[in-house]
Every structure is written in C-alpha cells, then in structure tokens.
C-alpha cells in the first residue's frame, strides 16, 4: 500500500534539481524556459527545487569540469534514494565542443551514473519535457 503510494506520488510529482556543471547557460535557460508559461512543466507536477536534499531528479547541464567533479559527486550523494539523473544537452552527454579541453573531463556519465540523455546543443524545452516523460515511463515499467 505504502510503496504504491510513494510510487504514485513520485510519478505524479517529480521534483527536479537543476545543476550546472560548466555549461554555457544555453541549456540552463532552456530548462528554465520549460518552467515558464509557454511550456509550463509545473502542470505535470514537476517542480524546480533548491537543494539536492529535496530532489528526485538531477537535471545536469554542461560538461563536467575538473573543478566541479567533486561537487557533482557530493550533490549526487546528498540526493535521497531513489535518485535519477538526466543529462541535458550535448555537453552533458559527451562534452560537445569542449571535448579535449584540459579542464573538461567529458560527459556527466564519466562522474555519476546517468538514466536519461537528452540530445541537442542546446536542447529545446520540448526536448527537456520529453526527457522527463521518458524517465517517468521508465519508472512505471
């Protein structure tokens, strides 16, 4: 009964933490645009949260820089279980144009496990919503 209830609430209202690990702001702006009236993900119960301790889903943008690596791991550890990571944008997937730069490790998956990848440079807000919906379907299944 209780597990059913938690499962239901998790599906109906996933709270996200938006984390920039060295992105150029383009993806960040598009993630925020997804929260504003035109796209409005809040109608699906998706809420942007301030701290990793309140979040279910970490939305990561940008390649993992060496300076952010430890912080990224720490934020991942602070998020309560079960936690999910969405890598948003080409940078978070593979490093994009920054691949090969001395301060860039590569994609987010080099540091923490990733559940969903959303491609695009930068991603469109529609794609962010699609990514979250795919993640929710994954949870159901």
């Amino acid at each position, binding site marked *: 009964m209780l597990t059913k209830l938690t499962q239901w609430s998790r599906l109906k209202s996933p709270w996200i933490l938006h984390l920039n690990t*060295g992105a150029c702001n383009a993806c960040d702006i598009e993630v925020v645009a997804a929260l504003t009236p035109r796209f409005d993900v809040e109608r699906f119960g998706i809420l942007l949260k*301030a701290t990793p301790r309140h979040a279910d889903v970490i939305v990561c943008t940008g390649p993992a820089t060496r*300076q952010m690596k430890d912080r990224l791991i720490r934020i991942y550890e602070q998020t309560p279980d079960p936690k999910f990571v969405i890598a948003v944008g080409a940078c978070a997937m593979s490093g994009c144009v920054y691949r090969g730069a001395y301060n860039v490790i590569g994609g987010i998956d080099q540091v923490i496990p990733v559940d969903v990848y959303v491609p695009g440079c930068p991603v469109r807000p529609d794609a962010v919503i699609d990514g979250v919906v795919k993640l929710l379907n994954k949870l159901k299944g």
Partner: protein
Amino acid sequence: MKFQIPIGPQHPALKEPISLRMTVEGEIIRDADIRLGYNHRGLEKLAEQKTWIQNIYLTERICGICSHSHTTCYVQGVEKLMELEPPKRGLYIRTLVAELERVHSHLLWLGVAGHEAGFDSFFMYTWRDREIVMDILEIITGNRVHYGINTIGGVRRDLDEQQIKHILDSLSVLRQRSEYYKHLGTNEPSFVARLAGVGYLSREDAIALCAVGPTLRASGVPMDVRKDDPYAVYDEVPFEVCTAETGDVLGRTVVRIKELFQCYNIIEYLLKNLPSGPVAVRAPRRAKPNEVVSRYEAPRGENIHYIKSNGTDKPERLKVRAPTLGNYAATIKMLKNGFIADVPLIFAAIDPCICCAERAVSLVDARTGQEKIIVMNDLKRLSRRLSAGNIRKREAEWPL
C-alpha cells in the same frame, strides 16, 4: 564581531557556478571575495587548435545568452585580420540579430530581477513575452539559442519579405507588452521600494572600477560601444544611449527598460532600410600574421576579443574579456556595507543571472562556532522583511 559566509558554487537554476565569500558583521557585509573557476573549460586554449571557421562555433558557446555577441566580436576581429569588407545587407542582418538578442536578454533579466525581488508573476510575464523574440530568432536563424548565423565575411542566411512582415508584426505585440513594464513602477510601488537604494554605485566608483554596460550607465555614465566606437552599421542607425542617475538596482532596471524601446526602434529601422545585395563575401582560409582587438556592446556590457594570427588557418591566441568579469570589481563595492539579504538582488543586477536560483548559504557564528544552513528562499524572505522597514527606499519614485 566578524564572520565569513561562503556562498556557492552550486546553483540549481540558470547560471554558472561561482563561489562568494562574505565577511559579515551582523547583517552588514564588510567585505566580499569572488572565487571563480568552477565553469572554467579551457576555451581559449581550445581555440588555438581549431580553424578560423570552427572557432565561430566555439566562441558561440562561451555564453548561451549572448552567443551572438561573442561570435560577432570574434568575426569582426577576424574580418579585420583578413582585410574583408562584409556586404551591407550582411551587416544589417548581423545587427538585427544582435538587437533581437539584446531584447531577449533584457526581458530575461527583468524577469530575474522580478524573481529576486519576490515578484514572481512579473518573472512569468517577461519570460512569456521573451518567447515571442525566441520565435523570431528561430524563424530568422533556425535556432532558438545558438543562432549560428555569423560567418567570416557576413552572415549565413538571408531574410525574405514574409519574415520581415512577421518580425514587424511581432514587434508591435512586444511594444504593447513593454508598455506595461514601463508603467510597472507606478502600478507596483512595492517593487520600486525593494529595488531603490540597493547596491549603490557612485559615478566615480563606476568609472574607477571599470564597470561596463547597464551597470555603468545606471550610474550616469553615458558610455556605449555602439555610440563611442561604432561597429557593424551602428553609425547609420539613430538611437540614444540610455542612462539613469540613481546608481542602484532601480536605475539598472530603468536603463534596461529604456533600452528595450531603443532596441525596438533600431530593429524597425534596420528592417525598413534593409539594403539589397549579397549577405556574405568569400573568406580566405588563412590570415596574415597580425593582431587585433575587437569591441562589441553585448547586452551586459563591453565585450572584448583579442586575436593574434600567425599566417596559418588557426589563431595563435584568442583572449576573451566578457562583460561580467569587468563588473566583478564593481559588484564587490556594491555588496560592501549592504545587507546579506540584498546579495541575490545586487548580484543579479549586474546580470550574471547567478542568483536566479536558490542555493545554500552557510552562516557560521564565530562566537559559538555553530554552522547554520539557510536556503535562498529563507534568505529572500529575510530580505523582504528587512526591506520593509527602510524609510529611504519608501520615498523612491518610478522615473519612467
């Protein structure tokens, strides 16, 4: 009793990670220190490994909000190195995209300022209107954020009559919506009261600390690269440099709202006087050994690129001075002797958008050694409570 507050580097929304250390005495900030490097990717070194053309796409990804600023600044420099003369129509389209970008950036900033001041419906309004500009940009360039329209020697896409008509139609909608922002202060006195007197920067300090862009203009210094050192077609376009005298966050808001209307006028002028002809000229693959400094007025202020070529198809050195960096010194001055609760607002006012998000601030009590974590929401609540009793701010008037 002094103690230190670290802020950052994790910011859940919007901007690059940054770390701030505040030395506070009670509620008053006595000193501030900015630590950078969380977002450092090694872009300048990377540029040395890529060709002139490839670097356009790299410089575009320096910043996602002023992506056109960086490419234009870079491309202008390379054109000077290659001794190219881009055709007039190409320059007009380049300027058009630049002004559209300024509109979207200022609308974004207004929303952020509203959010930080606790006026969230304003945030939603401006971001809704911003989508109109994003649609225009998508129609012109094919992309919402990284337009990829610049190329060495001109632009990559031409405009047709239908697009021009669409932009002019959308522009009248935007003008109408912006009228509301213009009268915002008269309708919302609490918003004005929250912004007035916060983050004061005097005219002398603004000049001495090399502030740039709207931060500088809000302190009453009419400096704008578009007027002082015209690039592209700004010498042909009639427009005014917008300033404010108050030197606080209110002044910076006023400057940006005034600039919005100037942008609409510039866009209209550009579309109505668009010359015919080609949009780009062919560029050589190599540039002769030389060096050049290129300046550009980005929405946030003066953007400088220094480019050095050595005769190959790759730059020997690319140095980027982004406007936010130019404003950091002034920010520290603004933060000093202010309230901790004003930090988000003051920091957002230089438009690094860094404080759009909530984040944890750790307050260390030096007497007991106790550490207290405050979420940015609580900090904002605190800021609203504190600003409620301030008499000086209550007398403020909306200047528009």
